[in-house]
């Protein structure tokens, strides 16, 4: 075991941290799968509206790799298939029979066995392949290149995040079975990153087949991009798979039972969250299920993911395929501070001491979704560098991408980051530049240029 100390970064102390209490959320009336969560796929529906489906039955496949399917996380009826331009499938909504007291039945999924190719195919057909993501790019794994390593992330340092170690508590057998699946996917090592001296880790310290690395320090100490840079940086042409500890447990559950693992643990937090805790929730459940079936109202922003990297969902929307945390913060509509830039602002969260909240530090801050400033050209006061623990010069990387010079951007470390790794740069930037968006544009261009 190695301990890595991250010194650069920033922990956002936000109000409404989810408590370490697990309870079952009610069965959602509907569940949904959105294709927008998987950029680059070409979905083809395998069911029609009105069809009866069982849990684990494929709903659509990806025409780029027809083995990759997405399965229904519930038993019931296909309520709606939403299409966009040129009949591009946007969303599949399933009426969940269990909400009305119906019985859940499971599709018979093949268990993983045989060589790497057979295991890959089995994972794809079980609808679990999208749980794995590829570095570089941080997207769905494409092609059949073998990864040099698999990084399992057993911690999350993002604000209001669920603690993955807590989420898989009591599921040691599932985690172990999941790791055994992963071992078949790579000739390299499987790494597990854990928070140094974290809680709920008793089951995780003696797993077989993984190399454990401890990380301590402020966010982004818990991001897989940080872990890769410290454990085993990728060389040009190499790829790695990344996934989260709770997803390993889901893989393991499928490997052990042959059933689609539809239940996930989602942390609910944020200053405006109706409750603060961890919920056992059906994948893709409508977000209202976290509020006892009632829509979360008010001028709030409901975020699937965390406040630094996530997507906003409507009050009547659904949690995503990857949902591990849902944060509810004020939206801040129409709120405009008089002389906001000139007053000391004792109660505002900031990385910079030019905001005077360092004088009277609060334990927790309520932060809304306002930008708190106008867009400006890059004026680099060194804030990006202070929150990025990677050996990258972020301003030069951003400029190379903006100039569409992808060769230069790659030399500057584009392939070592995703938008999640630079989210803190976006947060601290006084010029309100969306660094994550720029990084994603760069990665997209890199993919396009092959």
């Amino acid at each position, binding site marked *: 075991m190695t301990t890595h100390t991250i010194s650069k970064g920033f922990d*956002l102390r936000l109000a409404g941290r989810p408590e370490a209490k697990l309870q079952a959320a009610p069965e959602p009336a509907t569940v949904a799968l959105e294709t927008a969560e998987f950029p680059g796929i070409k979905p083809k529906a395998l069911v029609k509206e009105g069809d009866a489906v069982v849990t684990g039955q494929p709903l659509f496949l990806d025409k780029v790799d027809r083995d990759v399917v997405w399965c229904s996380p519930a038993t019931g009826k296909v309520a709606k298939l939403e299409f966009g331009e040129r009949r591009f499938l946007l969303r599949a909504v399933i009426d969940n029979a269990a909400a009305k007291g119906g019985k859940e039945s499971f599709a018979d999924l093949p268990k993983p066995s045989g060589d790497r190719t057979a295991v890959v195919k089995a994972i794809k057909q079980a609808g679990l392949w999208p749980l794995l993501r590829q570095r570089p790019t941080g997207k769905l794994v494409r092609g059949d290149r073998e990864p040099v390593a698999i990084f399992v992330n057993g911690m999350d340092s993002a604000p209001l995040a669920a603690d993955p170690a807590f989420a898989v508590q009591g599921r040691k057998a599932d985690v172990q079975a999941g790791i055994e699946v992963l071992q078949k996917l790579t000739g390299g090592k499987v790494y597990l990153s854990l928070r140094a001296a974290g809680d709920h880790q008793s089951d995780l310290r003696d797993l077989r087949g993984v190399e454990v690395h401890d990380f301590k320090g402020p966010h982004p100490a818990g991001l897989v991009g940080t872990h890769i840079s410290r454990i085993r940086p990728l*060389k040009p042409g190499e790829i790695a798979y990344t996934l989260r500890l709770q997803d390993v447990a889901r893989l393991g559950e499928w490997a052990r039972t042959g059933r689609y693992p539809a239940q996930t643990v989602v942390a609910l937090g944020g200053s405006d969250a109706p409750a603060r805790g961890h919920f056992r929730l059906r994948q893709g459940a409508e977000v209202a299920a976290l509020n006892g079936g009632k829509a979360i109202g008010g001028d709030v*922003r409901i975020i699937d993911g965390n406040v*630094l*990297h*996530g997507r*906003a969902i409507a009050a009547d929307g659904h949690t995503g395929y990857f949902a591990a945390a849902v944060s509810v*913060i004020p*939206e*801040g*509509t*129409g709120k*405009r501070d*008089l*002389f*906001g*830039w*000139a007053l000391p*602002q004792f109660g505002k*969260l*900031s990385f*910079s*001491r*030019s*905001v005077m909240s360092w004088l009277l530090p609060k334990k927790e801050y309520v932060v*809304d*979704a*306002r*930008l*708190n*400033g*106008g*867009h*400006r*050209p*890059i*004026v*680099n*006061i*060194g804030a990006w*560098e*202070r929150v990025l623990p990677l*050996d*990258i*010069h972020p301003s*030069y990387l951003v400029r190379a991408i903006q100039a569409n010079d992808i060769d230069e951007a790659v*030399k*500057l*470390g584009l392939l070592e980051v995703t938008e999640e790794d630079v*989210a803190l740069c*976006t*947060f*601290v*930037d*006084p*010029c*309100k530049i*969306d660094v*994550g*968006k720029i990084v994603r544009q760069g990665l997209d261009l890199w993919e396009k240029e092959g």
Partner: protein
Amino acid sequence: MQFLRNLVEKQKKLYHAPDSKLHKVWPLFDALETFLFAPDHRAARTGTHVRDYVDLKRVMNTVIVAMLPCLLWAIWNAGAQHFHAIHALIAAGKTTADAYVTGWLQAIVPPNVTEPGAMENIVFGLQRMLPILIVSYGVGLGIEMLFSVVRKEEVSEGYLVSGMLIALIVPASIPLWQLAIGVAFAVVLGKEVFGGTGMNIFNPAMMVRAFLFFAFAAQMSGDMVWVAGNQSPIGVPGSLIDGYSQPTALAVVKQATGNASEALAAFGGGAYSHSNLFFGNVPGSAGEMSKLCVLLGAFWLVFTGVGSWRVMLSGVLGLLGTAFLMHTLSGATTGPLSLQPWEHLLCGGFLFGIVFMATDPVSSPETSTGKWIYGALIGAVTVLVRTINPAYPEGTMLAVLLLNAFAPGIDHFVVAANIKRRLKRA
């Protein structure tokens, strides 16, 4: 506040819509509106949903706060030096208290010329500094807004700092028309032609100083300082006290025939003593004289994280190190090289330059290593100009501008090393 907000919202209709009558000058309205109220922007629905409370306005405001001690001292010192000079002339029998001519503010608050006190100093200082500030901000912001309207971009805050810096690095006796020309030159050719805030190569305030230095060398050469007065003597532009001027501390050093440290200490009966130089009881450019005020500003900039401590520290180390080497290796006992190395910090505008000008995030290197190199070289070049160059007594301005030009080059090598390190892993 709600009243103000309603008023703004009502006016906004005249400007905001693309087909509205006054839409052409929308950036002006936007600048004013966001000066009052934080802009109504919210984070995108995907990505990063929360943002730091700091924005560019606040960053610039923080720098302005850091410069306030210097500004206050500038106001005080312009008055103090003025009455000091008047009294010296009265004592020498060259003028009388009755012959004193008042300026525009003194016409409202008449001074007691025979026994001037704090009030007299402040009134005179305001009388000089307010017009300088107004011209500096008026001309500079005017041009910035004009370019914003033409470019249809939001007005950037960069000039808020430049405007104040400019007021602090020109002599209080400067004719306002010279200042206006200098500001116009620096903002248009030093900044806007490159694309505005964030795009310029040279520090705009330093460009003003350089322009004035070369265009109106008689008043800005750095050898002699005049003391601001209320009259423009015949044949001399600017409002200064006729017949009263003295060499700057660095000019004393430059011209020293004996030991420079001793010459400095002996000059004018201790006018350039260490404590006078440190606290700023000397005539010179408005804001850079008091090292104490500069240090207060430096502390604030470093504490808030807005100014780079790397540039400041490496600059001072570069200055001291080079001065020490030059002093020791040359073994000089006479001339500028004989000045004690640490006395370089007290003389001239180096401290002000390294704290407020060299740390400009746009015209300095962005990499940490680059900042160390850049600061150290500014210190080194300053000493070289001061001690070896036969023409100019002060080198800070030239050093900062020179290193501004080299900043992208310094970064290039640091970034190239980063790329090399990345390739090495392969």
